[in-house]
């Protein structure tokens, strides 16, 4: 990924988006305290410091997911990625981070690169991740130990790969929804949103 590259291809776009998800998921897991903070290490990417997990199991899991996701992004068959945070004891869904992915399928036919510099895309990605960090200002405190789950919505006709299983949408009832920023590589567009349990006040 050199900054001299001016255009962007489908492959590059898929890679960028997958990379975003890798960092984004790590950030959420860190920010929301799903894993203990000492199991994260700081790296610099997108000109900002980010936390990446050092837990080998989690790392492995995320690499698997992201590489699968990259494939689907390349085929433009993925619609949504959802990170669900559930209470470990009661299995109640407490938070739901949803990333809607819009693919421009015409990019599959024409291989001509699109005009958008990586710099601009990374700037957009940065502001999305910043916003994820900033959400602690209004999200409720997760008081209980929590687990997380990743859901990927794909086109219907896709074969479910090994180690993946079909699941329900895990919607929170009575939720408050906040749209976050979005970014686009001009081939993939990612809209982010977080939903959380509504406070009983006001």
């Amino acid at each position, binding site marked *: 990924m050199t900054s001299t590259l001016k255009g962007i291809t489908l492959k590059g776009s898929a890679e960028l988006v997958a990379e975003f998800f890798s960092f984004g998921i790590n950030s959420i897991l860190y920010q929301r305290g799903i894993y*203990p903070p000492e199991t994260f290490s700081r790296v610099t990417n997108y000109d900002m410091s980010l936390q990446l997990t050092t837990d080998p199991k989690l790392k492995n899991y995320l690499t698997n997911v992201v590489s699968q996701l990259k494939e689907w992004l390349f085929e433009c068959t993925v619609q949504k990625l959802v990170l669900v945070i559930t209470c470990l004891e009661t299995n109640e869904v407490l938070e739901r981070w949803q990333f809607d992915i819009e693919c421009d399928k015409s990019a599959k036919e024409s291989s001509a690169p699109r005009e958008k510099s990586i710099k601009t895309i990374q700037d957009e990605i940065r502001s999305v991740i910043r916003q994820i960090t900033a959400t602690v200002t*209004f999200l409720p*405190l997760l008081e*209980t130990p929590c687990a997380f789950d990743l859901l990927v919505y794909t086109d219907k006709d896709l074969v479910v790969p090994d180690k993946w299983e079909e699941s329900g949408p895990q919607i929170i009832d009575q939720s408050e*929804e906040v749209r976050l920023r979005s970014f686009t590589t001009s081939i993939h567009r990612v809209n982010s949103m977080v939903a959380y349990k509504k406070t*009983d006040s006001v």
Partner: protein
Amino acid sequence: MAEGGDMEWELSKENIQPLRRGRAISALHEALSLQQDGLSSAINQQRQAFESELRMYDGDDPLDVWDRYIKWTEQTFPQGGKESNLATLLERAVTRFTEEKKYHDDPRYVDLWIKFAENCPEPLDIFRYMQAQGIGVTQASLYIAWSEEYENQGNCRKADLVYQEGFKKCAEPHDKLLQFHKALQARVSRQVMMNVEEDSDDEPKQPERVSLAELKHRGKKKAIAPINRTGSAIRSISGGMQSHGAPVLGNASNSRLVVFDENKTQSAGPSEPKLEAWAAPPTSRAKENERNPEKWCGVKVPQKSKFGHTVMAPPPPKPTFQPFVEESDQPPTMTPCKINPAVNTVLSARKPHREETPLKRLQEHHQQQKEAESGKLQEQSMYCKELLLSGATEFCFEELRAERYFKKVTPEVRGQMDQACASASN
């Protein structure tokens, strides 16, 4: 919800205090947009409505109004601060119902107490007071908050003992208490393990060093909104020293946990509240940048230049991180310095004076009530003082009268309106 225009919260994220239960995003947007033009009339109106509701309420659950008022205040003033009046409000609410036994185990009331304690400089005193008064002793939330406070101060043993006390009292919900107790044990054991690892390559540390380490080790606690950041950071120093087995203060309360003895406290505590009974008078209201005087071993006093500025130590030659510089960035425009160094005199030390802490006020209030009951009270107000002063702000007689008048008039007016509508539709 439209995109783009709703990014307002991000621009003022530093001014939003995180709440345990989170914020309603719509309330947040509204609050932020209203705040741009000062305290708006809409907020004032709503506040006035709550105030008069407090006074006019004649149902059997007066706590409900307070509860709603306080929750509204939390959501409407995301940055907290003085104008939200939250501290006063909590204090009033809490004092108001100390005598009402029916609320003592009401989760809402206990929650108010816990919020009040979090706003106080010495939350532990408040929790002890609650226990002595029998407020929330069967509520798991009291023990959880209490234990978390101990844990924040680095005293994990006492944090554990608080849970034991909760189990003894059969606090409800039992599951929740059990779960939080387990989580505490997990955190402590992890901390111990990490301490062992670090101690092996480290000599006994300076107190300052300990405080840094403590902060790092907080584990899951990081997720808990540290509103009083400076306070806990400073407190953790003493916590660290305690855990190293060095008694810092000669207080009886410090040497060993005094197990709560019901009979003893009943004779000593609530019946005749002694102000001295609370060791180590709590300091003033939470302020930032307050530290206890301490010895600065081997630290040079910063020299003063002839202009009266303190000469700072030269910054470290190179920062360990790479500051991010936006390529397209304009050179930053300098903010003109308004402070004239000649006028700006050096800050003088604060004069020690008797501080009135919320806890003391509580005790005084309690004492007054006791006196009033036994008929010892000398004064008797010949007007409804309670009503005028019951909210967070003071009402005048006219306001009260107006409220009563409107209450009486509204049904009639409504009746007339209905008739008018009926005739109009005819």
